[in-house]
């Protein structure tokens, strides 16, 4: 597919981000065709490059961190597809000036620094708009740029605690539980990309840029909006009951054939209940008054669970779910990472793309869910090695001379070697 046909071809994005949420926002724009440049000081590389902490060998190809583990981390390499990397240390000679020169030629800046950092670096929105009138600057602080919690540091799991989500998830009587393991990060990434698309459409129509504050927790609260509004209306908070819920039964996971294999079944009405009874060959359950309606099924959910588990235990999770779905019962296998790699559904969507990474080798990478028929996005280029594109950006975009580049290099400003 022609790159220039992608919707955001010609848009330049500079990312001052780390870990997952910020990179996921840039990755979304890069998928849609934007030129996304990561600024990566070698003294403080992206935390998902894991420059120092290599004790978890499961992150690397063949469980081998190699000589430059920061270029082989599965975490970084998944979230930075299609991007360029510029090694640039703002604290070393020429670093700040070089960044400012680049920002003056940039359409969108994504920052997940703490509130006030961009201003302290003299690259806040008010300063940048003097350099480029229609620039779009997005900041994505956990709790917003104001309010008593503005300066509290946070990560995906602690943000999930603050949104109210974690209190809704857990085993009966157990601790609040976070989602696997940092759901708020991709949530923040997509919310940020949505905000930037809003600004780009407005800029295309008006010629004006703007500043965007994306308070990640507040944005994520939208995802459980009706649950929060219900608690506000009733004054009562739902208590987690594992996978069971008060509005549907059975609504649970059941053990399937094999080790740690599960099938999820979600019966949302009486019609689906009768379909389930017939599918699992227990027609007597369908006429049993104890189970005929939701209140009965909720009251007798433990006994019901055992009856259904009798059927699921001897079956493959994929086959059990497919059989139930063909009978009109919402059900699914609880897929593992391996199941995803072999999923026919995801293959039909072209979800995985094999990309050749210069230091990690060729592997399939999980994709993004955007399908535009005329101007499609794509995963075209593996995540960059640290500083892989520094020279290209300095010479081809910023038009620096070889002598000027040499000065930056001698000062260590553009070193690609983590300190």
């Amino acid at each position, binding site marked *: 597919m022609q790159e220039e046909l992608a919707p955001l071809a010609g848009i330049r994005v500079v990312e001052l981000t780390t870990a997952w949420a910020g990179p996921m926002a840039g990755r979304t724009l890069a998928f849609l065709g934007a030129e996304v440049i990561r600024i990566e000081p070698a003294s403080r590389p992206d935390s998902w490059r894991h420059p120092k902490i290599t004790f978890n060998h*499961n992150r690397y190809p063949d469980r081998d961190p190699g000589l430059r583990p920061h270029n082989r981390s*599965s975490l970084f390499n998944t979230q930075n597809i299609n991007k360029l990397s510029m090694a640039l240390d703002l604290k070393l000679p020429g670093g700040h000036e070089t960044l400012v020169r680049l920002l003056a030629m940039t359409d969108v800046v994504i920052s997940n620094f703490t509130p006030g950092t961009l201003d302290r670096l003299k690259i806040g929105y008010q300063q940048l708009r003097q350099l480029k009138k229609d620039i779009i600057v997005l900041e994505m602080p956990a709790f917003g740029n104001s309010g008593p919690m503005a300066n509290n540091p946070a990560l995906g799991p*602690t943000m999930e605690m603050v949104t109210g989500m974690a209190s809704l998830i857990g085993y009966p009587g157990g601790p609040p539980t976070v989602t*696997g393991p940092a759901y708020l990060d991709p949530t923040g990434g997509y919310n940020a990309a949505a905000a930037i698309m*809003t600004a780009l459409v407005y800029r295309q129509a008006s010629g004006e840029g703007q500043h965007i504050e*994306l308070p990640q927790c507040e944005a994520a609260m939208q*995802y459980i909006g009706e649950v929060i509004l219900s608690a506000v209306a009733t004054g009562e908070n739902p208590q987690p009951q594992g996978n069971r819920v008060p*509005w549907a039964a059975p609504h649970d996971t059941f053990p399937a054939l094999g080790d740690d294999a599960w099938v999820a079944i979600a019966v949302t009405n009486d019609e689906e209940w009768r379909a389930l009874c017939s599918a699992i060959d227990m027609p007597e359950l369908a006429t049993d008054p104890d189970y005929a309606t939701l209140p009965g099924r909720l009251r007798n959910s433990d006994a019901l669970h055992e009856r259904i588990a009798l059927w699921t235990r001897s079956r493959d999770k994929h086959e059990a779910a497919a059989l139930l779905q063909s009978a009109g019962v919402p059900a699914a296998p609880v*897929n593992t990472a391996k199941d995803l790699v072999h999923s026919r559904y995801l293959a039909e969507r072209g979800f995985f793309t094999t990309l050749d990474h210069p230091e990690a080798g060729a592997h399939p990478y999980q994709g*993004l869910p955007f399908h535009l028929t005329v101007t499609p996005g794509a995963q075209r280029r593996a995540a960059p090695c640290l500083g892989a594109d520094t020279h290209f950006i300095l010479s081809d975009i910023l038009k620096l001379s070889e002598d000027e580049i040499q000065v930056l290099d001698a000062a260590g400003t553009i070193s690609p070697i983590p300190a």
Partner: protein
Amino acid sequence: MSETIAGQFCTRMLADYGADVVLIEPPSGSGIRSQGPFDPRQDPAPSLLFFHCNHGKRSVTLDHAGPSGHKLLLELSRAADVIVVGAGIDRDALQAASPNAVIALVSSFGDDGVYRDWRGTEMVHVALSGMMNHNGLGEREPLYGCGNRSSYAAGVCAYISVLAGVFARKKIGRGQKVQVDVVETASSMGYPYATQHVYNGWLEPRGERGQPFAVLKCADGWVAVWIREEHWIGACDAFGLPELTSDPRFTGTATRQSNWDTLVAIVQAQVKTLPADELVARLQARKVIAAKAWQPTDLYGACPHLTGRGYWESVETADGPRPVLGPQFRMSATPRQLRAGPPEVGESNAAIYSSLGLAAAQIDSLRRAGVI
């Protein structure tokens, strides 16, 4: 004309940021109107799910199955820049009627492919996505999560796709079809366990994340803490356990991680009588990443942070004012617009159908025929 949370949330975002959004409902009303949670203080109890996904929209009713209904649907499409539909709608016919429109299919699985006849719910979506497998404890069943989060995420991705299509109109001079599935969206939000698996065959077990994360029970609630190497001494100080800094079981990230359960047990015994807010304040004062597990009701009313940010807003509804969650993002030039509560079923029928050139008598006869 979407009957899914994902589709209706996508168009609510469009309404938030200035679009004139018309919800096309069946004459009996959108199915989302009868999905909970409901507000029990009113009779009949209104759906808070419908409220949350549809404030700021207008509504027309239309049964588009028959020929006159289908003709009206094409008329409505001609006036649209964006059309969001569910599975089973003839998108080519809509595109032919409205070449400049971005036409988005937003659904659980799409209407082609292996799952085209499957039924989706939140648990089905997250089970298929691979995310559910990593929630909860290794020795227990996996946990699906809460609410309808995968649908909202897909709504956001549909919004991104739709705006990408709108943005591309300038370049290609026309609209196009786009598609977002809830299950593919949820699959894209998983931690990169699939990449780890193809990198080296590893399958991460549930509940063993090897991360410096703990959830601690305090006197009045739960506190989550994440202890980075540079925060270790500060964390011990905040716990009131300075002796741990010289304990060889906890020296260095890797050693500490391998004795993590022991460490958490010691800390848990120490903090169980502390108020949660006090523990969080102590930790945050030392730059340690920590947060209390908030309950949904903590987010409203007396919450000093959200109140301080002017987070909550409200709209007038037939039942009086109702709170609305604050904006997803705060834009300096184009702030979120909160125009009205959700529409009554078909409340804009007269206005919108007359704008298509229908006379009052024609609208009346369509209503009597059950088309609108």
